[in-house]
């Protein structure tokens, strides 16, 4: 008697489907979208913060921590640090349809700081990588550059203004095909 559940895992835009089957007798089998089902020997360790997996004798120790975001998961495997989003299939579907209709973007502060200079104005065209503003944080002056080539729609900050993580500083529209 197997109980199955399916999840969609998003790693920086790449999506995978995983099916976890648990048997009444305790066995676990995992099926990834590009492979057949696989018995795994899985133990939670370090007070549930890491998973020790054995697949055909090979050991994998994966540290896992929930991030603040919905479904967000930070994982470390063999010194590689990855950010994942775990979703059910419905949400994954919904997300894909939203992404395809959005052609613009926002530039938000990644860290709290103070805006010390602005190099662009609304309406201006910028190339990907162009300097837009300088944000002082942790005693460093950080140049914030355009993430894509396109047009500046709106500047939402002023020189001297303090911003918090996530505050939108610039809104822009990407050039079609840019």
């Amino acid at each position, binding site marked *: 008697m197997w109980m199955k559940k399916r999840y969609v895992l998003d790693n920086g835009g790449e999506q995978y489907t995983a099916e976890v089957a648990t048997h009444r007798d305790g066995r676990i089998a995992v099926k990834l979208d590009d492979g057949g089902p696989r018995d795994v*020997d899985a133990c939670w360790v370090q007070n549930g913060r890491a998973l020790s997996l054995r697949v055909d004798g090979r050991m994998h120790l994966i540290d896992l921590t929930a991030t603040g975001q919905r479904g967000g*998961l930070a994982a470390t495997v063999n010194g590689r640090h990855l950010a994942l989003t775990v979703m059910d299939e419905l949400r994954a579907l919904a997300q894909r349809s939203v992404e395809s209709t959005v052609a613009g973007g926002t530039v938000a502060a990644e860290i709290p700081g103070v805006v010390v200079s602005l190099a662009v104005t609304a309406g201006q065209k910028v190339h990907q990588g162009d300097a837009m503003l300088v944000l002082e944080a942790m005693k460093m002056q950080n140049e914030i550059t355009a993430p894509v080539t396109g047009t500046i729609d709106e500047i939402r900050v002023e020189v001297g203004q303090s911003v918090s993580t996530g505050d939108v500083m610039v809104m822009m529209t990407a050039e079609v095909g840019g």
Partner: protein
Amino acid sequence: MSERKITKVLVANRGEIAVRVIQGLREMGVRTVAVHSTPDRTALHVLVADEAYEIGPAPAAESYLRGDVLIATAKACGADAIHPGYGFLSENAGFARQCEAAGIVFIGPRPETIDLMGNKLSARHKMLESGVPVIPGTEAAVRDPEVAKKAAAEIGYPVLLKAAAGGGGKGMRVVREPAEIDTALRQTMGEAKASFGDDAVFIERYIENPKHIEVQVLGDGEGKVIHLFERECSVQRRHQKVIEESPSPSLTPELREAICSAAVRTAESVNYLGAGTVEFILSQDKEFFFLEMNTRLQVEHPITEMVTGTDLVRAQLRIARGQGLPYTQDELRQRGWAIEFRIYAEDPAKNFMPAIGRINSHIAPSGPGVRVDSGIYEGFDVPIYYDPLLAKLIVWGEDRPQAIARGRRALMEYTLHGPGHNIPFHLWALERPRFIAGTYTTNFIDERFDPAEFQDPLPDDDREALLTAAALWEARRREAVRTGDSPASTPSAWRLDARRRMTGNS
């Protein structure tokens, strides 16, 4: 020099260096006093000190840089001495003088030495006098863009703009053509003013593709100076060191002898007292030039300790007590190889942008040849106000290949979740042929580092394991939500069953 009693020391710093200094002082039977800004009440250095006092609000200018409050606190709690660590007031001659005037030992060199070495121009003059080679450049501070352009033209591009009062890699900018001077000068002066309270900037020839070599020295203030060999600190981002090693893979025994002698000459020229570091720039054709002298303990001092078998905090205290140098030059030998990895809260994939947040997991590596100097613990909130250095991983090996392999092993073992950090960068660096060959220069990161390499596909094995783990995590989380159990407690049944299956008893 007469001996001075030091039985209680106020450590005027925070983070890993305050912890390391407290550990060292405690081992000498000295009582330790921490100071902290308001948000640092729960910082590790406060937790581990014998006593701790709050000195002001978050901004360093209102707390860790308040010399008057520090001295008043030291007097009030009966501390004999102040250890300044690095950064903050460690190279502030005025503060050293105030300590002296208040009858408190400043654990560092004499104020005149700090003054002389703290100003790049006066240091240059002194080196020229003492026959230590210096880089061609302006002899006076420059504030006017036009003057700057003229000076740069004389020296020849590329040139380097440097804050006269700077240090630790802050307040420096390379300028490759006249058009860039205006902006660069304004930004450098701005940073200089913000960081050091002095906007004087000077200009010198920029040495292309150099190596950064520095020499640790100790002086007794009565003319005796010894060196503890070199460190190479050429892996830098934004002119700030990220990985350091000792010995340097770039020095022949003859060059080592020459550069260490020049460092001793530098320290002797000011009758140096205490621990200091003479920094040199080494050109591609193995010419070396005096860069600056740091009149304090250095972030990267542990690699010297591991290679020479010394304790620099202990040496500092002994010298401050007037007990003289703890070693003779003849006793000192380099043994094996040490590498330090600075663990910063920053995102290497986003131009090393600083990160903040709560430390969710911190399991530092251990075992043979591994030292960790940490300023954090699980549950600590990394504040935004200060340097983003979380910890230092230092590894020692019998030789350079072992030190590299050990560094890789220890970095892979290092568990750190919460703010973004640069452990992936270190692992990347250790795989670069230039690093392995030891031929890297200070341009290593700018030239070689491509954040896209972090997005390299995982090996199939690892990818499958990761996806399996994520799916099991989600299954556990939903089960926990459904049953009200804490996630950590549910999966024991899986473990038992999996075990039964492996032994074929089910």
